[in-house]
């Protein structure tokens, strides 16, 4: 794959950047997320996680099926602060 292909579309992270990070010793989705922001955007990794998992296995071996997925962080979809504020019991 070409280095400039975008893998994480939310945060604009390319294949080349991901490979470089894996080669520097980051071997899990969670570590890559914290350093590259892959999976921190609006889609929360639903688009790129499997692709990145495959890139990791290509670089260091192992099976995609054995890789720990990113921890799910709420909310499932981005929600406006004003709407969440209105949902409070204390209103």
């Amino acid at each position, binding site marked *: 794959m070409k280095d400039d292909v975008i893998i994480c579309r939310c945060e604009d992270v390319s294949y080349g950047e991901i490979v470089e990070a894996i080669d520097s010793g980051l071997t*899990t989705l969670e570590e890559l997320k914290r350093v590259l922001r892959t999976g921190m955007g*609006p889609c929360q990794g639903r688009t790129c996680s499997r692709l990145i998992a495959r890139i990791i296995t290509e670089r260091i071996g192992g099976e995609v099926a054995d890789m720990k997925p990113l921890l799910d962080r709420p909310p499932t979809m981005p929600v406006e602060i004003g709407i969440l504020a209105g949902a409070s019991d204390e209103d």
Partner: protein
Amino acid sequence: MRTNADCVIIGGGIIGAAVAYYLAKGGMTNCVLLESEYLSSGATGRCGGGIRQQWSTEPNAQLAMDSVRIFKTIEEELDADIEFLQGGYLVLAYTDEDVEQFHKNFELQRRLGLDVEILQPEEIASRVVKQVNTDGVRMATYCPTDASANPFLATKAYAQAAVRLGVEIELFTPVTRILREGNRIVGVETERGIINTPRVVNAAGSHSVPLARTVDVEIPITPYRREILVTEPLERFFDPMIISFSFGIYFRQVKHGSVIGGFAYADEAPGFNEESSIDFLTMMSRKLSFLMPALKHVKVVRQWAGLYDVTPDAQPIIGETDGVDGFFQANGFSGHGFMIAPKVSSLLSQLILGQKPDLDIDRLNARRFSEGDVDLDHSVV
């Protein structure tokens, strides 16, 4: 994995990584840093990244001020970008108690040479940030040299610099117990084997408590969940961290553009719970909507939680354990470990290297709790 080391550091957060770096820099390069998961997977990587010098006790203020001095040049020293930004801290007072305490803090901080100032509510918009709602604000303090940085990048920077100096870092390597013979440390047992060492640094946050128990040492730390959220990225529109002790809240706009912030429940139950809650999400949104109405139309993309390792006086436990030679504590940071990490880690490494620390940290030894010598800091969020 090395089987013999001069020092084993347990915990791959900012403290463990920085202690490893300063030890190696001071000449003790045969160190091993053990981390049960990955770097900054615990409290460090879950924190807000604020670096505040405005504290109510002299020791905390001094440690934070010295740490800012180190942070200012650390990117060059470690050859890494950690997104260090001196955007200031704006602290809002709402009650009589706040006002009284803020004046005391101001006197203390000015005496120490901090460039903090008192602002009247009407000065906030023109001097610091336009979008803050000042309804109910009695006064504020503002320190332009308070700062922030990216906790992941800072931890990684210290860790990589330590490795370059000869430190070994073992990730995904949980410690099963510390090994003690009589009154001294002799090693560490991990799931991957034993490392013989005369020195152990316990920098595992709230998990320091069960670790210390493996050598019959009790440390007075209680874990409390603290929650936090982050929004979608916005064009930069404010620089300072904004905090209020009355609201228990802090928030700032990070370099990436998103707004990140949290607050503490007054009645959070102690424990190792790190689940996110819907109550936090809605209550935090109400607080943010009040304090900065412009945020109402901004979307929250993610929330998470982490653990504060809280001591009885909200100050960290630093130093060698009485009765167990070679067992060093670096824990109990009570929610402000990241911001004082550079100085505290440097001082602890001096202690371990047998040098005289260039700032007194003996008062942070755990023995203060048995001697009843505690000085509670009132500026904890």
